[in-house]
Structures are given as C-alpha cells and as structure tokens.
C-alpha cells in the first residue's frame, strides 16, 4: 500500500502500523533509527498517532521531528 507522508508517497507492506511507517521514513530519509523516538506521526487533522495505530492505503500522515 502507499501512504502519503509529508506530501510524498511511501510504499510499505499491507497491514503496516504507524511505527513501521516511522521506521521506513527514518531509513529513507537517512535519519538513523535512533532518531525515531523524536519523530511524531499525526493524522490529517493534526492528532497524534501512536506507533500501534493501523494504516490504510492512501492515508495522509504528517511526520515531524520534535
């Protein structure tokens, strides 16, 4: 499936959760896995999403570095 992160598509496996997406985002952006604790994922409304939150195809997610 494809999730739209900060306006860019990221392909990831079906059934991925927010924590998986944050990891993929960190690796793709060469942020290093240790930085993931500083990354915060939010939905299109700006609500915080925890790492166990499920994702759906075409979902819009914003990831910021706190």
């Amino acid at each position, binding site marked *: *499936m494809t999730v739209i992160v900060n306006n860019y598509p990221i*392909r*990831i*496996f*079906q*059934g*991925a*959760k*927010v*924590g*998986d*997406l944050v*990891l*993929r985002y960190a*690796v*793709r952006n060469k942020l290093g*896995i240790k930085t993931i604790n500083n990354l915060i994922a939010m*939905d*299109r*409304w700006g*609500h*915080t*999403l*925890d790492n*166990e*939150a*499920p994702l*759906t*195809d075409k*979902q819009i997610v914003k990831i910021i570095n706190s």
Partner: protein
Amino acid sequence: MKKFFVSIITLIVLSFPGIVTAETVRILSTNDMHSALEKMPQLAAIVDSIRAIDPTVLVLSAGDNRTGNPYNDRYEPVSYPMIQLMNLIGFDASALGNHEYDSKVEGLAKMTALSNFQYLAANIECPPETGIKVVPYQVFDVKGIKVGILGITQIGTLGIPDTHPDNVKGLSFQQPSDVIPKYKWLTDQCDVNVLLTHIGFENDVELASQFPYYDLIVSSHSHTQLEGGEIHNGVLITQNGYQLPRVTLTTLEVENGNVTSKKAENIYLDKFITRSEAATALLNYFESSPEMERVVGNVKSDITSYDAFGVMMCDAWVSECDCDIAIENYGGVRYDFFPAGPIKVKDIYNLDPFMNNAVVMNITGEELKDMLIACYKADRNRFPITSGCTAAVTYKDKSKSEIKSLNLFDTNGKKLDMKKKYRVMTNNYVASIAASPREDEGVRGTITTSDLIIQWLEKVKTVDYQGRTSFTEKW
C-alpha cells in the same frame, strides 16, 4: 490522597449544570485497550469514583479489548483476564474491534459467552451455530432517558475486519454506511443516540457527515488522541489513544427528549493513583498464570551464540509460515546462551520480546539480496540471520562498515537463482528498515513472531542448534 482524587472526579462530574438530574447522561468510554491489564485497577477506581456520584453512568468500550499482552492473549480461554476485569468494572457494552476476531470464530464465541456485557455490531451476521453472542444495538434507560447505542465493527479493504481471513470464516459483513440507515427508526425512538464504532477517526468523521442525527460517536481503531472530543457536523466524536492512557467522560444534557449540550473530557489514568483493590487482586492472580512457566520444548545441547538462536528462530518461521526463506535482524535476537534442558513459554518471550508480527512477501533472489544488504546497513552494520539460504559476505575491510560482495546459496549449497521468486518471511521491523525497492512489499499478519516460535517448538519438541550460523564473513 484517595480523597483528593475522588474530589477531582467529583469536580469534573459536578462542573456541569443540572447536577445528577434526570436530564444528565454520562458515558465513560474506552477504546483500543489492547490487553492493558495493568491499567485496569486504575480504570476500576475511576469508574467506582464516578458511580459514587452518578450510579447511572454508562461504561462503554469501542473495541480491541484484547491483543497486546501475552498474559491475556495466551490465556485459556483466550482473553479471559481482560473479560473478567471488564466484568468486575461493570462495562455495559463493547463494540467488536478487528482484534476481537484474532482467535477465530471459536475464540470470539467463548469471549462473548464469558462477558457480562453485550457486544454490539449492526454490520455483522453471525450464524447461530457460531455461538457468537452479538446484537446490533442496545437501549439503556438512564433515569428515564432512552439511550440507544448502535455498534459498528471494522471492515478493511478485503471486505472483512483486518485480521486473518481464516479468523472470520462463516461470518459476513456489511459496510457501515449501508447498515446505519436501516436503524433510523431506532434514533426516532431514543432521546440520546450513540454510535459505538471501531472504524477509525477519519471514517467516523465521514459517518458524522452522513448521519448527523447521532449525538455521539464513541470512536476507536485509529488510536487517535483527542483532547476530550471534537464536534464534526454537529456530532461529538471521542477517542483516546492506545492502551488506556486516558478515558473519556462524556456528559450530555437532555431536555424534552433532545440533547441540548454535550461535552467530553479526558481523565488521565497515570494521574489517578488510586487502584481498585478487587481489580488489583484479580490482576495479580492472572499475572501469576502458569502459562508462562509451561515447557514448550527441549534444548538438546547448550546454545551459545546469537547466530544459533537466530537460525532457530528463522527455521521456526520458515516452517510455520510455509516459506522458502526467513530473515531476522541480528539485533532482534536477545539470547546468546541457553543451557541444555527445557525451554519455557517465558523464555521465548525473552528471546523475541518485541511483539513483532510476520510479514510475508514474494520476492526475487535479487530483491532478497538487496533486502539483506539494506537490513545490514540499517541494523548498525550487522548482517542478518537467515533460514532457507546461507550467505558469504565479504567486507571492504575489517571494520565491516561496507559490503564488498555478497553471495547467497540455497540449502543444497548451490548459488541462489537471482531471478526466481521466493516466498520470504521476516518480521515487521526488518520489513520496515530494509527499505530497498521490491515489487511485493508483503503483508503483515496478526500472529506474533514469538508465538510462531512457540507453535513450532511444540511440534518439533527437541532442538539442537549448538554452533549453527547462516553466514560467513571475511574481508
């Protein structure tokens, strides 16, 4: 101190006009508790405190009560600890989350039979022979006010809840927006109308736009952290994170059969230090479960390295996921020594403690090679462990900071066919960090990788992995 916290609850409850009058309906709601057993004594104390002020408060769960803690999810009958704690607290109703189906129809039937509260889902059809006790809605009389609650269960892209299709065999599901209009008559008969859903916040916003005659949507599934609630198209939506960081207290004022005001606010569990003694005693009982001490296999001779344990884990996954190859990141193996003798359930949870799930994909030998290299780079330059293939890794120098060449071999020692497709299993961590391009990203299942190892050990009974490794290194 207990009095202080009871006072806080009192202030919250009494901060609205019409103190405990026939016109006030209070609902305490949770969502996505995911087996948060350790939070239940605090939740019980909060519910007790509110009931002391308003005995008519309705306590609702929007589903996914289970899956997330082996003490609950491995219990037999499954999820019995969580259900007993919910019974003790006195939940009034629960939606069916997608994880309620994780133990198949038989498991769900047992769960519903053991629960003292009703499960609500209007968009599921359960044939009577399944034994699942679920109804579409329930009407509560709260001080003479009719509160109608319609349940909605989650449906994913496959037209079933997000669980393994085998788990919902024999059940049929309908889209929420097709079903909800059929219950318009119920909303005409009730003073307060609530949707108890497990479909995620974004879908609930959509429901609010389609069905504005509902007063409240108790939302779940997306683990959205709301500050109290939000009004969308006049409908109040509440949801409160994952594993009970907070619960939501919603207060609705009703005059002449109409809701005149509604408000929701969060109660923080970690700030509420009072714990119910009865729930604590029950929790202690369940946490001393003999399941963790159960012997699942026998280790023939001492296992003395991470590599050997990693190969054992991968062998288990190849077998249990019916795959050609399995991959484990080196850092994911948490034992480097285990003495010959019995191996218990708790040992497997210590060996593989991350509650990861299997991700199965069909990829070419070339894609597999790229994936192994990507995993090595992301896992602090440690080459991953495999089963179903072996690897000969040559680094540029002794620092192992860069791979110069990588050759893969099948189980017969022949070079792996780089164009052939293989069914490969790994955990969701590796599938995420190994960000090399591949046509098939795979599918994440619901069973944990540790549970797969336990399943496998119960079958093979005795293992001997002393000295085993899956790759050679040189520079």
